[in-house]
Protein backbone atom coordinates (compact mmCIF):
# COMPACT_ATOMS: atom_id res chain seq x y z
CA UNK A 1 0.00 0.00 0.00
CA UNK A 2 2.65 2.53 1.03
CA UNK A 3 4.65 1.60 -2.06
CA UNK A 4 1.65 2.55 -4.17
CA UNK A 5 1.18 5.89 -2.43
CA UNK A 6 4.78 7.04 -2.56
CA UNK A 7 6.45 6.32 -5.87
CA UNK A 8 9.26 8.77 -5.09
CA UNK A 9 12.75 7.28 -5.23
CA UNK A 10 15.44 9.52 -3.79
CA UNK A 11 18.29 10.08 -6.21
CA UNK A 12 20.46 12.88 -7.60
CA UNK A 13 19.80 12.61 -11.31
CA UNK A 14 19.18 15.66 -13.49
CA UNK A 15 15.44 14.94 -13.42
CA UNK A 16 15.41 14.79 -9.63
CA UNK A 17 17.25 18.10 -9.30
CA UNK A 18 15.04 19.94 -11.76
CA UNK A 19 12.74 22.59 -10.30
CA UNK A 20 9.41 20.89 -9.49
CA UNK A 21 7.45 23.75 -11.11
CA UNK A 22 9.28 23.16 -14.39
CA UNK A 23 8.55 19.47 -14.08
CA UNK A 24 4.83 20.04 -13.53
CA UNK A 25 4.62 22.41 -16.54
CA UNK A 26 6.63 20.03 -18.72
CA UNK A 27 4.44 17.10 -17.74
CA UNK A 28 1.32 19.04 -18.70
CA UNK A 29 2.82 19.98 -22.11
CA UNK A 30 4.05 16.44 -22.80
CA UNK A 31 0.58 15.11 -21.93
CA UNK A 32 -1.01 17.55 -24.37
CA UNK A 33 1.52 16.49 -26.99
CA UNK A 34 0.56 12.84 -26.51
CA UNK A 35 -3.08 13.82 -26.98
CA UNK A 36 -2.66 15.89 -30.19
CA UNK A 37 -0.40 13.44 -32.03
CA UNK A 38 -2.43 10.89 -33.98
CA UNK A 39 0.17 9.19 -36.20
CA UNK A 40 1.33 5.89 -34.69
CA UNK A 41 4.96 6.38 -35.77
CA UNK A 42 5.33 9.71 -33.96
CA UNK A 43 3.54 8.36 -30.89
CA UNK A 44 6.05 5.50 -30.80
CA UNK A 45 8.92 8.01 -31.03
CA UNK A 46 7.41 9.94 -28.11
CA UNK A 47 7.00 6.73 -26.10
CA UNK A 48 10.61 5.78 -26.77
CA UNK A 49 11.79 9.25 -25.70
CA UNK A 50 9.79 8.99 -22.46
CA UNK A 51 11.20 5.52 -21.80
CA UNK A 52 14.62 7.17 -22.23
CA UNK A 53 13.67 9.70 -19.54
CA UNK A 54 12.82 6.84 -17.16
CA UNK A 55 16.29 5.50 -17.87
CA UNK A 56 17.89 8.93 -17.22
CA UNK A 57 15.98 9.14 -13.93
CA UNK A 58 17.41 5.71 -12.98
CA UNK A 59 14.10 4.19 -11.90
CA UNK A 60 14.44 0.52 -11.03
CA UNK A 61 12.76 -1.77 -13.54
CA UNK A 62 10.83 -3.69 -10.89
CA UNK A 63 9.38 -0.55 -9.32
CA UNK A 64 8.42 0.81 -12.73
CA UNK A 65 6.64 -2.43 -13.63
CA UNK A 66 4.74 -2.45 -10.32
CA UNK A 67 3.73 1.20 -10.77
CA UNK A 68 2.59 0.64 -14.36
CA UNK A 69 1.06 -2.82 -13.96
CA UNK A 70 -2.52 -1.60 -14.25
CA UNK A 71 -1.65 0.62 -17.22
CA UNK A 72 -0.02 -2.30 -19.01
CA UNK A 73 -3.13 -4.44 -18.44
CA UNK A 74 -5.36 -1.67 -19.78
CA UNK A 75 -3.11 -1.37 -22.84
CA UNK A 76 -3.48 -5.07 -23.60
CA UNK A 77 -7.26 -4.77 -23.24
CA UNK A 78 -7.36 -1.76 -25.58
CA UNK A 79 -5.27 -3.52 -28.24
CA UNK A 80 -7.48 -6.63 -28.12
CA UNK A 81 -10.90 -4.97 -27.90
CA UNK A 82 -10.47 -1.80 -29.99
CA UNK A 83 -10.67 -3.48 -33.46
CA UNK A 84 -14.01 -5.15 -32.58
CA UNK A 85 -15.68 -1.85 -31.75
CA UNK A 86 -14.04 0.29 -34.43
CA UNK A 87 -14.50 -1.53 -37.78
CA UNK A 88 -13.96 1.50 -40.05
CA UNK A 89 -12.01 1.81 -43.31
CA UNK A 90 -10.35 -0.74 -45.54
CA UNK A 91 -8.77 -3.23 -46.04
CA UNK A 92 -11.13 -5.58 -44.19
CA UNK A 93 -9.02 -8.40 -42.75
CA UNK A 94 -11.76 -10.60 -41.32
CA UNK A 95 -15.51 -10.68 -41.46
CA UNK A 96 -17.95 -13.08 -39.80
CA UNK A 97 -21.55 -12.03 -39.24
CA UNK A 98 -21.52 -8.91 -37.12
CA UNK A 99 -17.80 -9.15 -36.41
CA UNK A 100 -15.63 -7.18 -38.82
CA UNK A 101 -11.97 -6.41 -38.31
CA UNK A 102 -10.14 -3.82 -40.39
CA UNK A 103 -6.51 -2.74 -40.54
CA UNK A 104 -7.29 0.90 -39.52
CA UNK A 105 -9.21 -0.56 -36.54
CA UNK A 106 -6.17 -2.50 -35.34
CA UNK A 107 -3.91 0.52 -35.88
CA UNK A 108 -6.41 2.68 -33.96
CA UNK A 109 -6.18 0.31 -31.00
CA UNK A 110 -2.39 0.34 -31.05
CA UNK A 111 -2.36 4.13 -31.30
CA UNK A 112 -4.65 4.57 -28.31
CA UNK A 113 -2.67 2.04 -26.27
CA UNK A 114 0.60 3.86 -26.97
CA UNK A 115 -1.07 7.18 -26.11
CA UNK A 116 -2.26 5.80 -22.76
CA UNK A 117 1.28 4.52 -22.16
CA UNK A 118 2.77 7.96 -22.88
CA UNK A 119 0.33 9.72 -20.55
CA UNK A 120 0.96 7.24 -17.73
CA UNK A 121 4.73 7.35 -18.11
CA UNK A 122 4.85 11.16 -18.14
CA UNK A 123 3.05 11.36 -14.81
CA UNK A 124 5.00 8.42 -13.41
CA UNK A 125 8.25 10.27 -14.17
CA UNK A 126 6.96 13.31 -12.25
CA UNK A 127 5.98 11.13 -9.28
CA UNK A 128 9.18 9.15 -9.01
CA UNK A 129 11.53 12.12 -9.42
CA UNK A 130 9.67 14.56 -7.15
CA UNK A 131 9.12 14.11 -3.43
CA UNK A 132 5.62 14.77 -2.13
CA UNK A 133 6.99 17.76 -0.22
CA UNK A 134 8.46 19.32 -3.37
CA UNK A 135 5.30 18.64 -5.32
CA UNK A 136 3.10 20.42 -2.80
CA UNK A 137 5.66 23.24 -2.45
CA UNK A 138 5.59 23.74 -6.21
CA UNK A 139 1.77 23.76 -6.32
CA UNK A 140 1.71 26.36 -3.52
CA UNK A 141 4.28 28.50 -5.37
CA UNK A 142 2.14 28.23 -8.48
CA UNK A 143 -0.80 29.73 -6.64
CA UNK A 144 -2.45 26.96 -4.62
CA UNK A 145 -3.53 28.22 -1.18
CA UNK A 146 -1.07 27.09 1.45
CA UNK A 147 -3.86 25.59 3.61
CA UNK A 148 -4.91 23.32 0.75
CA UNK A 149 -1.30 22.39 0.04
CA UNK A 150 -0.76 21.51 3.69
CA UNK A 151 -3.97 19.45 3.83
CA UNK A 152 -2.88 17.63 0.71
CA UNK A 153 0.57 16.78 2.04
CA UNK A 154 -0.84 15.77 5.44
CA UNK A 155 -3.35 13.40 3.85
CA UNK A 156 -0.63 11.86 1.71
CA UNK A 157 1.63 11.57 4.74
CA UNK A 158 -1.04 9.88 6.86
CA UNK A 159 -2.18 7.27 4.33
CA UNK A 160 0.42 4.66 5.39
CA UNK A 161 -0.14 5.45 9.09
CA UNK A 162 -3.84 5.05 8.63
CA UNK A 163 -3.41 1.74 6.81
CA UNK A 164 -1.33 0.46 9.74
CA UNK A 165 -4.06 1.53 12.20
CA UNK A 166 -6.75 -0.25 10.22
CA UNK A 167 -4.62 -3.42 10.13
CA UNK A 168 -4.13 -3.22 13.89
CA UNK A 169 -7.88 -2.77 14.45
CA UNK A 170 -8.62 -5.76 12.22
CA UNK A 171 -6.13 -7.83 14.22
CA UNK A 172 -7.71 -6.73 17.50
CA UNK A 173 -11.16 -7.81 16.32
CA UNK A 174 -9.90 -11.06 14.84
CA UNK A 175 -8.33 -11.80 18.24
CA UNK A 176 -11.88 -11.51 19.63
CA UNK A 177 -13.04 -14.31 17.38
CA UNK A 178 -14.43 -12.18 14.57
CA UNK A 179 -14.12 -13.66 11.10
CA UNK A 180 -14.36 -10.77 8.65
CA UNK A 181 -15.17 -12.75 5.53
CA UNK A 182 -17.43 -15.42 6.95
CA UNK A 183 -21.18 -15.69 7.21
CA UNK A 184 -24.08 -14.13 5.35
CA UNK A 185 -23.87 -10.76 3.63
CA UNK A 186 -25.61 -9.07 6.55
CA UNK A 187 -23.27 -10.74 9.04
CA UNK A 188 -20.24 -9.63 7.05
CA UNK A 189 -21.50 -6.06 6.85
CA UNK A 190 -21.99 -6.11 10.63
CA UNK A 191 -18.45 -7.45 11.04
CA UNK A 192 -17.11 -4.42 9.25
CA UNK A 193 -18.91 -2.13 11.68
CA UNK A 194 -16.54 -3.41 14.35
CA UNK A 195 -13.61 -2.19 12.23
CA UNK A 196 -15.24 0.98 10.95
CA UNK A 197 -16.24 2.49 14.30
CA UNK A 198 -12.77 2.32 15.92
CA UNK A 199 -11.25 3.55 12.65
CA UNK A 200 -13.46 6.64 12.54
CA UNK A 201 -12.82 7.36 16.20
CA UNK A 202 -9.06 6.99 15.76
CA UNK A 203 -9.17 9.28 12.70
CA UNK A 204 -11.08 11.96 14.59
CA UNK A 205 -8.69 11.70 17.53
CA UNK A 206 -5.68 11.92 15.22
CA UNK A 207 -7.11 14.98 13.46
CA UNK A 208 -7.81 16.61 16.81
CA UNK A 209 -4.29 15.98 18.12
CA UNK A 210 -2.82 17.12 14.82
CA UNK A 211 -4.67 20.42 14.91
CA UNK A 212 -3.40 21.04 18.44
CA UNK A 213 0.13 20.17 17.33
CA UNK A 214 -0.13 22.61 14.40
CA UNK A 215 -1.44 25.37 16.65
CA UNK A 216 1.27 24.78 19.24
CA UNK A 217 3.80 25.35 16.46
CA UNK A 218 2.19 28.69 15.62
CA UNK A 219 0.42 27.61 12.45
CA UNK A 220 -1.29 30.57 10.82
CA UNK A 221 0.43 33.12 13.05
CA UNK A 222 1.03 35.47 10.15
CA UNK A 223 -0.69 35.71 6.80
CA UNK A 224 2.45 36.24 4.70
CA UNK A 225 4.03 32.94 5.54
CA UNK A 226 7.79 32.65 4.94
CA UNK A 227 9.39 29.43 3.74
CA UNK A 228 12.31 27.48 5.12
CA UNK A 229 13.05 26.01 1.71
CA UNK A 230 12.67 28.40 -1.20
CA UNK A 231 12.51 27.16 -4.76
CA UNK A 232 15.01 28.82 -7.09
CA UNK A 233 14.96 28.57 -10.87
CA UNK A 234 18.48 27.88 -12.12
CA UNK A 235 19.52 28.65 -15.73
CA UNK A 236 19.28 24.94 -16.52
CA UNK A 237 15.68 24.96 -15.27
CA UNK A 238 14.80 27.82 -17.63
CA UNK A 239 16.49 25.88 -20.43
CA UNK A 240 14.46 22.76 -19.59
CA UNK A 241 11.29 24.85 -19.52
CA UNK A 242 12.04 26.30 -22.96
CA UNK A 243 12.84 22.87 -24.37
CA UNK A 244 9.63 21.32 -23.10
CA UNK A 245 7.55 24.23 -24.41
CA UNK A 246 9.30 23.92 -27.78
CA UNK A 247 8.74 20.16 -27.88
CA UNK A 248 5.03 20.85 -27.55
CA UNK A 249 4.78 24.11 -29.54
CA UNK A 250 6.65 23.04 -32.70
CA UNK A 251 4.55 19.94 -33.49
CA UNK A 252 1.37 21.76 -32.44
CA UNK A 253 2.11 24.67 -34.82
CA UNK A 254 3.08 22.28 -37.60
CA UNK A 255 -0.13 20.33 -37.20
CA UNK A 256 -2.73 23.03 -36.68
CA UNK A 257 -1.27 25.98 -38.63
CA UNK A 258 0.66 24.28 -41.44
CA UNK A 259 -1.55 21.16 -41.55
CA UNK A 260 1.37 18.75 -41.42
CA UNK A 261 -0.08 15.27 -40.80
CA UNK A 262 1.17 14.28 -37.30
Amino acid at each position, binding site marked *: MSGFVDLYTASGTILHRMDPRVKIVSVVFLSLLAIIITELVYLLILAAALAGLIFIGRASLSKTLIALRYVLRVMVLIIILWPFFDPHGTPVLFEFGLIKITLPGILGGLETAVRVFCLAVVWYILMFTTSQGDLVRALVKMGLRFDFGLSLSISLRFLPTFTA*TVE*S*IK*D*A*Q*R*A*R*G*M*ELDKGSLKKRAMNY*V*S*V*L*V*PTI*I*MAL*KTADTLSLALQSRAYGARADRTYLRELWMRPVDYLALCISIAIFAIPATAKYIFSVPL
Partner: protein
Amino acid sequence: MAIVGSNACGKTTLAKNLNGLLRPTAGTVVVAGRAAEDQTVAQLSRVVGYAFQNPDHQLFCATVDEEVRFGPVNLGYPEDQIRAKVEHAIEAMSLQSVRKLSPHTLRLSNRRRVSIASVIAMDPQVIVLDEPTTGLDAGETKVLMENVLRLNREGRTIVLITHDMRIVAEYASRVLVMTNGRIVLDSDPRGAFADLDVLRNCGLVPPPVTLLAHRLAKLGIPKDVLSSQELVLRIVLEKGGAR
Protein backbone atom coordinates in the same frame (compact mmCIF):
# COMPACT_ATOMS: atom_id res chain seq x y z
CA MET B 1 4.63 -14.98 33.13
CA ALA B 2 6.19 -11.70 32.07
CA ILE B 3 7.89 -10.95 28.76
CA VAL B 4 10.34 -8.05 29.04
CA GLY B 5 12.89 -6.47 26.72
CA SER B 6 13.65 -3.21 24.96
CA ASN B 7 11.24 -1.74 22.41
CA ALA B 8 11.14 -3.60 19.08
CA CYS B 9 12.86 -6.69 20.49
CA GLY B 10 10.04 -9.00 19.44
CA LYS B 11 7.79 -9.25 22.50
CA THR B 12 4.58 -8.43 20.64
CA THR B 13 5.65 -10.50 17.63
CA LEU B 14 6.13 -13.52 19.90
CA ALA B 15 2.76 -12.96 21.55
CA LYS B 16 0.92 -12.51 18.24
CA ASN B 17 2.27 -15.87 17.12
CA LEU B 18 0.43 -17.43 20.05
CA ASN B 19 -3.01 -16.69 18.62
CA GLY B 20 -2.17 -16.84 14.96
CA LEU B 21 -2.31 -13.13 14.10
CA LEU B 22 1.23 -13.63 12.87
CA ARG B 23 2.49 -16.88 11.39
CA PRO B 24 6.14 -17.94 11.66
CA THR B 25 8.25 -17.94 8.49
CA ALA B 26 10.18 -20.93 9.85
CA GLY B 27 9.48 -23.48 12.54
CA THR B 28 6.15 -24.33 14.17
CA VAL B 29 4.09 -22.83 16.95
CA VAL B 30 2.42 -25.30 19.30
CA VAL B 31 -0.49 -23.97 21.34
CA ALA B 32 -1.86 -26.22 24.10
CA GLY B 33 -0.42 -29.30 22.47
CA ARG B 34 -1.76 -28.59 18.97
CA ALA B 35 0.08 -27.09 16.04
CA ALA B 36 -1.13 -23.53 15.50
CA GLU B 37 -0.65 -23.56 11.75
CA ASP B 38 -3.81 -25.51 10.94
CA GLN B 39 -6.04 -23.45 13.25
CA THR B 40 -7.66 -20.13 12.44
CA VAL B 41 -7.30 -17.04 14.62
CA ALA B 42 -10.89 -17.57 15.78
CA GLN B 43 -10.11 -21.14 16.86
CA LEU B 44 -6.91 -20.13 18.62
CA SER B 45 -8.64 -17.26 20.40
CA ARG B 46 -10.61 -19.83 22.44
CA VAL B 47 -7.28 -20.85 23.97
CA VAL B 48 -5.24 -17.67 23.83
CA GLY B 49 -6.94 -14.32 24.41
CA TYR B 50 -5.04 -11.23 23.34
CA ALA B 51 -5.73 -7.77 24.77
CA PHE B 52 -4.19 -5.11 22.57
CA GLN B 53 -2.12 -2.26 23.91
CA ASN B 54 -4.45 0.45 22.63
CA PRO B 55 -8.04 -0.25 23.75
CA ASP B 56 -9.34 2.30 21.21
CA HIS B 57 -8.38 -0.15 18.47
CA GLN B 58 -11.18 -2.49 19.44
CA LEU B 59 -13.97 -0.65 21.26
CA PHE B 60 -16.96 -0.01 19.00
CA CYS B 61 -20.17 -0.92 20.86
CA ALA B 62 -22.71 1.38 22.49
CA THR B 63 -22.32 -0.09 25.97
CA VAL B 64 -19.65 -1.91 27.96
CA ASP B 65 -21.97 -4.93 28.21
CA GLU B 66 -22.28 -5.28 24.44
CA GLU B 67 -18.56 -4.79 24.03
CA VAL B 68 -17.80 -7.68 26.39
CA ARG B 69 -20.43 -9.87 24.68
CA PHE B 70 -18.86 -9.46 21.23
CA GLY B 71 -16.15 -12.12 21.70
CA PRO B 72 -18.24 -15.01 23.08
CA VAL B 73 -21.02 -14.26 20.55
CA ASN B 74 -18.44 -14.55 17.74
CA LEU B 75 -17.32 -17.89 19.11
CA GLY B 76 -20.94 -19.10 18.96
CA TYR B 77 -21.57 -20.01 22.60
CA PRO B 78 -25.23 -20.61 23.63
CA GLU B 79 -26.99 -17.62 25.19
CA ASP B 80 -26.93 -18.82 28.84
CA GLN B 81 -23.18 -19.49 28.64
CA ILE B 82 -22.57 -16.12 27.04
CA ARG B 83 -24.41 -14.46 29.91
CA ALA B 84 -22.41 -16.34 32.51
CA LYS B 85 -19.12 -15.55 30.81
CA VAL B 86 -19.98 -11.86 30.46
CA GLU B 87 -20.96 -11.67 34.14
CA HIS B 88 -17.69 -13.30 35.13
CA ALA B 89 -15.63 -10.98 32.92
CA ILE B 90 -17.39 -7.82 34.16
CA GLU B 91 -16.85 -8.93 37.73
CA ALA B 92 -13.24 -9.97 37.12
CA MET B 93 -12.39 -6.46 35.88
CA SER B 94 -14.65 -4.70 38.46
CA LEU B 95 -16.71 -2.98 35.76
CA GLN B 96 -20.13 -3.37 37.42
CA SER B 97 -20.60 0.37 37.96
CA VAL B 98 -19.98 1.36 34.32
CA ARG B 99 -21.49 -1.58 32.43
CA LYS B 100 -24.37 0.43 30.98
CA LEU B 101 -22.15 3.32 29.82
CA SER B 102 -20.54 3.80 26.43
CA PRO B 103 -16.96 2.49 26.51
CA HIS B 104 -15.70 5.55 24.62
CA THR B 105 -16.70 7.92 27.40
CA LEU B 106 -14.68 6.06 30.03
CA ARG B 107 -11.21 7.05 31.20
CA LEU B 108 -8.18 5.19 29.85
CA SER B 109 -7.86 2.80 32.80
CA ASN B 110 -11.48 1.75 32.43
CA ARG B 111 -11.28 1.49 28.63
CA ARG B 112 -8.34 -0.84 29.09
CA ARG B 113 -10.27 -2.91 31.63
CA VAL B 114 -13.16 -3.17 29.17
CA SER B 115 -10.80 -4.42 26.47
CA ILE B 116 -9.32 -6.97 28.88
CA ALA B 117 -12.81 -8.01 30.06
CA SER B 118 -13.85 -8.55 26.43
CA VAL B 119 -10.99 -11.04 26.15
CA ILE B 120 -11.76 -12.73 29.49
CA ALA B 121 -15.36 -13.22 28.35
CA MET B 122 -14.09 -15.57 25.63
CA ASP B 123 -12.90 -17.77 28.49
CA PRO B 124 -9.38 -18.47 27.23
CA GLN B 125 -6.87 -20.53 29.18
CA VAL B 126 -4.10 -18.06 28.38
CA ILE B 127 -4.55 -14.29 28.45
CA VAL B 128 -1.95 -12.10 26.76
CA LEU B 129 -1.86 -8.53 28.10
CA ASP B 130 0.19 -6.18 25.92
CA GLU B 131 1.50 -3.39 28.15
CA PRO B 132 -1.71 -3.19 30.21
CA THR B 133 -0.37 -0.62 32.69
CA THR B 134 1.04 1.95 30.23
CA GLY B 135 -0.47 5.35 30.93
CA LEU B 136 -2.12 4.30 34.21
CA ASP B 137 -1.33 5.91 37.55
CA ALA B 138 -0.04 3.94 40.55
CA GLY B 139 -3.49 3.37 42.05
CA GLU B 140 -5.05 2.25 38.74
CA THR B 141 -2.10 -0.04 38.10
CA LYS B 142 -2.47 -1.67 41.51
CA VAL B 143 -6.20 -2.29 41.13
CA LEU B 144 -5.74 -3.69 37.61
CA MET B 145 -2.90 -6.00 38.63
CA GLU B 146 -4.83 -7.28 41.66
CA ASN B 147 -7.69 -8.20 39.29
CA VAL B 148 -5.23 -9.89 36.95
CA LEU B 149 -3.71 -11.78 39.87
CA ARG B 150 -7.16 -13.11 40.75
CA LEU B 151 -7.57 -14.43 37.21
CA ASN B 152 -4.19 -16.10 37.55
CA ARG B 153 -5.31 -17.79 40.78
CA GLU B 154 -8.38 -19.14 38.91
CA GLY B 155 -5.85 -21.21 37.01
CA ARG B 156 -5.38 -19.06 33.91
CA THR B 157 -1.97 -18.33 32.51
CA ILE B 158 -1.31 -14.60 32.21
CA VAL B 159 1.30 -13.52 29.67
CA LEU B 160 2.26 -9.97 30.58
CA ILE B 161 4.22 -7.79 28.16
CA THR B 162 5.60 -4.83 30.06
CA HIS B 163 8.36 -2.31 30.62
CA ASP B 164 7.57 -1.88 34.31
CA MET B 165 10.08 -3.95 36.28
CA ARG B 166 8.33 -3.24 39.57
CA ILE B 167 5.24 -5.05 38.29
CA VAL B 168 7.44 -7.92 37.16
CA ALA B 169 9.10 -8.11 40.60
CA GLU B 170 5.80 -7.96 42.40
CA TYR B 171 3.54 -10.22 40.30
CA ALA B 172 5.44 -12.45 37.88
CA SER B 173 6.44 -16.02 38.68
CA ARG B 174 8.36 -16.48 35.43
CA VAL B 175 10.26 -13.92 33.34
CA LEU B 176 11.33 -14.13 29.70
CA VAL B 177 13.99 -11.58 28.78
CA MET B 178 14.17 -10.89 25.04
CA THR B 179 16.58 -9.01 22.84
CA ASN B 180 16.82 -8.85 19.04
CA GLY B 181 14.09 -11.43 18.56
CA ARG B 182 15.65 -14.02 20.88
CA ILE B 183 14.88 -15.17 24.41
CA VAL B 184 18.11 -14.67 26.36
CA LEU B 185 16.84 -15.51 29.82
CA ASP B 186 14.00 -17.62 31.16
CA SER B 187 13.78 -17.70 34.94
CA ASP B 188 11.90 -16.47 38.00
CA PRO B 189 12.20 -12.74 38.78
CA ARG B 190 14.92 -13.38 41.35
CA GLY B 191 17.12 -15.08 38.78
CA ALA B 192 16.25 -12.49 36.11
CA PHE B 193 17.29 -9.54 38.24
CA ALA B 194 20.48 -11.11 39.56
CA ASP B 195 22.56 -10.51 36.43
CA LEU B 196 22.72 -6.78 35.75
CA ASP B 197 24.88 -7.14 32.61
CA VAL B 198 22.38 -9.29 30.75
CA LEU B 199 19.61 -6.88 31.67
CA ARG B 200 21.62 -3.84 30.59
CA ASN B 201 22.31 -5.43 27.21
CA CYS B 202 18.56 -5.77 26.79
CA GLY B 203 17.94 -2.14 27.73
CA LEU B 204 16.39 -3.04 31.09
CA VAL B 205 16.94 -1.77 34.62
CA PRO B 206 15.67 -3.81 37.59
CA PRO B 207 13.54 -2.10 40.27
CA PRO B 208 15.41 0.43 42.48
CA VAL B 209 15.18 -1.80 45.54
CA THR B 210 16.98 -4.60 43.68
CA LEU B 211 19.66 -2.15 42.52
CA LEU B 212 20.10 -1.05 46.14
CA ALA B 213 20.53 -4.68 47.18
CA HIS B 214 23.23 -5.07 44.51
CA ARG B 215 25.05 -2.07 46.01
CA LEU B 216 24.73 -3.55 49.48
CA ALA B 217 26.13 -6.91 48.37
CA LYS B 218 29.37 -6.14 50.23
CA LEU B 219 27.43 -6.17 53.51
CA GLY B 220 26.25 -9.66 52.76
CA ILE B 221 22.79 -8.75 51.45
CA PRO B 222 21.65 -11.18 48.72
CA LYS B 223 21.26 -9.60 45.25
CA ASP B 224 17.87 -11.09 44.46
CA VAL B 225 15.76 -8.85 46.69
CA LEU B 226 12.41 -7.96 45.07
CA SER B 227 10.60 -5.73 47.58
CA SER B 228 11.40 -3.11 50.19
CA GLN B 229 9.98 -5.25 53.00
CA GLU B 230 12.25 -8.07 51.96
CA LEU B 231 15.28 -5.75 51.95
CA VAL B 232 14.46 -4.46 55.44
CA LEU B 233 14.10 -8.03 56.65
CA ARG B 234 17.44 -9.02 55.12
CA ILE B 235 19.21 -6.03 56.67
CA VAL B 236 17.75 -6.77 60.09
CA LEU B 237 18.75 -10.43 59.80
CA GLU B 238 22.25 -9.46 58.63
CA LYS B 239 22.75 -7.08 61.57
CA GLY B 240 21.40 -9.67 64.01
CA GLY B 241 23.78 -12.23 62.56
CA ALA B 242 26.77 -9.86 62.90
CA ARG B 243 26.08 -9.40 66.57
